[in-house]
């Protein structure tokens, strides 16, 4: 039986929609993950090796151990967001003559294959090699490794339990993140020392190897708590979240704008009611806070080119996140759109209004950055005008390349379903065009004129909006069969 489970799991993994991507996407995603992995490895080796130099006053082992609990807390948080709870996959087996208890053990065992369980080892192995191996005995190191292993697994099972019992309310994870920050700050100012608690546990393992029984006990408790909770709720319907009544929000204001207003309202609802678009909204603050990474640093403040990049980025969060999947968002009802919409000029105008409107709001939000200099306000204004006049048309023009159905019910993070080359290409012209406009002016020693030129180009785009929109619609009309056919293909 176990053999069959494993075989089916292997097939499921191999046939996941994530792999059914074009080779180029696989390579890009592969490189991305490879670098992420490499950064982890190099970072941890560097950190472990230089520990004594970074904290010359402290014992390196104790210092490292003081961070361990924080590391696990962060891991817990990351799992809460991204690790899947493998319950519903049981459904096809429930009617077969298999003991329910072995099903549950299998599901719990399966969760061990999550890559979150492997990350800690990338961090710990260099530390063990550089800082422990020379000083401690084999038994002491074995006890340490085991205690780390048990803690990783405990975190794995606790996060599953936590996620299952508390549903997926994201505010809980917000509270949790806040708790970590508060503990960290209190630690820093010496009110409460989570760090020394962490040191106490993991250093004492090294001195008294028997302490390893403590994390082992936590692991056993976490496993069986999970087991009991799962076996008592093994039927899929008991694990589904209770459906709330539909939220009936209507934006009355938009209704007066006829078909365009209706379409805008539809897109807003699409964003608020589906998991995938909704989960992209979390990134908006990151876009808007981008300035804080650059403006405080003297080096960047002088580089207008860099500031243009930041300006385009900050004034166009929706433009870029919504823009990369325009049309694909609507893939599940695209045939309905094609048979009901008889004026695609207005159809795309609705999308334009959303992008231009949110750019305007984003610009208002970034005004306080004027604190770092009036030229920053000016650059952001020019970029905002560009993001109203030109960028939306680039997005809409390229949107006709989207022909992959998008599953709106899955979260955004690490989700490559529906991704194609289009999404990677999209941002290039949006960032490159203003740079190219700016460059000649900068070369002739008049950067201010370059910034004004970006704004003027944006204004020209607003002036010639009908021409630009016609280009968008013409391209769409030519490609609509290809798009619709792609959208009809289920994953």
């Amino acid at each position: 039986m176990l053999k069959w489970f494993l075989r089916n799991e292997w097939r499921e993994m191999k046939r996941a929609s994530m792999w059914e991507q074009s080779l180029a996407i696989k390579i890009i995603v592969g490189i991305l993950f490879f670098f992420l992995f490499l950064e982890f490895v190099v970072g941890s080796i560097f950190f472990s090796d230089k520990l004594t130099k970074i904290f010359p006053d402290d014992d390196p082992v104790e210092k490292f151990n003081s961070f361990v609990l924080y590391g696990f807390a962060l891991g817990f948080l990351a799992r809460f967001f991204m690790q899947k709870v493998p319950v519903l996959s049981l459904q096809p087996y429930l009617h077969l003559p298999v003991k329910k208890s072995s099903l549950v053990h299998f599901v719990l065992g399966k969760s061990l294959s999550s890559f979150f369980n492997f990350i800690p080892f990338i961090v710990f192995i260099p530390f063990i090699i550089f800082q422990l191996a020379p000083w401690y005995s084999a038994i002491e190191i074995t006890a340490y490794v085991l205690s780390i292993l048990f803690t990783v697994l405990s975190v794995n099972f606790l996060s599953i339990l936590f996620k299952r019992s508390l549903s997926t309310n994201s505010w809980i994870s917000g509270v949790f993140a806040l708790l970590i920050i508060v503990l960290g700050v209190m630690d820093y100012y010496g009110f409460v020392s989570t760090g020394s608690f962490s040191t106490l546990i993991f250093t004492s393992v090294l001195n008294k190897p028997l302490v390893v029984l403590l994390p082992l006990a936590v692991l056993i408790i976490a496993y069986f708590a999970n087991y009991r909770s799962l076996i008592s709720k093994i039927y899929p319907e008991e694990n589904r979240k209770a459906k709330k009544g539909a939220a009936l929000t209507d934006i009355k204001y938009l209704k007066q704008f006829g078909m365009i207003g209706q379409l805008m309202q539809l897109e807003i609802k699409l964003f608020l009611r589906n998991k995938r678009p909704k989960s992209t909204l979390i990134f908006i603050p990151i876009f808007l806070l981008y300035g804080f990474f650059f403006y405080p640093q003297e080096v960047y403040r002088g580089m207008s080119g860099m500031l243009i990049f930041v300006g385009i980025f900050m004034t166009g969060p929706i433009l870029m996140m919504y823009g990369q999947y325009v049309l694909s968002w609507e893939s599940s009802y695209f045939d309905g759109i094609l048979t009901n919409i008889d004026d695609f000029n207005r159809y795309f105008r609705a999308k334009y209004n959303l992008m231009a409107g949110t750019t305007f709001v984003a610009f208002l939000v970034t005004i306080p950055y004027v604190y770092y200099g009036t030229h920053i306000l000016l650059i952001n204004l020019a970029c905002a005008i560009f993001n109203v006049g030109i960028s939306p048309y680039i997005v809409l023009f390229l949107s006709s390349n989207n022909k992959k159905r998008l599953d709106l019910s899955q979260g955004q993070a690490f989700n490559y379903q529906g991704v194609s080359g289009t999404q990677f290409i999209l941002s290039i012209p949006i960032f490159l065009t203003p740079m190219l406009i700016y460059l000649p002016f900068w070369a002739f020693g008049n950067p201010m004129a370059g910034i004004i030129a970006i704004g003027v180009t944006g204004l020209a785009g607003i002036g010639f909006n009908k021409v630009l929109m016609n280009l968008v619609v013409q391209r769409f009309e030519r490609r609509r069969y290809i798009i619709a056919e792609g959208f009809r293909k289920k994953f």
Partner: protein
Amino acid sequence: MINTINLTKEYNGQVVLNLPHLFINKGESFGLVGNNGAGKTTYFRLILDLIRATSGEVRINNEDVAHSENWKKITGSFLDENFLIDFLTPEEYFDFLAGVHHISKGDLENFYAEFETFFNGEVLGKRKYIRDLSKGNQQKVGIAAALLSKPEILVLDEPFNGLDPTTQIRLIKLLNQLKENSDITMLISSHDLNHITDVCERIVVLHEGKAIKDIRKSENTLKELEDYFAA
């Protein structure tokens, strides 16, 4: 009203539809039957300009559907769940379509009243998104949505599929009333020979993309169809 001229559709060199000539008159109730893969949905998608014809064209009111948008104003259609905006409630969906088709609030109210029996109290006022409705109720929403704009042409692909018996009977009654009280042109496909003969006055049998029978309905039609498919 709907003129099909030399229409073919190929996928990877394989002909899936080949209709040299088919004319559907105004007010006709046109039924399409055939086994899986016979080309029913392909034909409907070509009429609705959802796929590109390999050759030939479909003309509605003498305008090629691929190069005109006018037919959309007079055509109501529901082929499959790709027509439904599933994160809306049924009311929001109808409201959206009413906005797109410029239907007044009063007409929308009338529409709800007319379809009250058809919905059987399972669709409206439930505060549920369409995606949370059962398949049968989703089907009801789609069929009603196709009729919302009081179209001159109605295209339904297997509308009886997934409906409970009561609703199937109500749908037959609804379609027959429409036929009597208006000049609507109906195109309906089905796997159920009884249903199609209950509703349609003209029945075309598709087989491997070709129309092999084109029958005016008479008393013997059902028998004739049954004999054909049994063979």
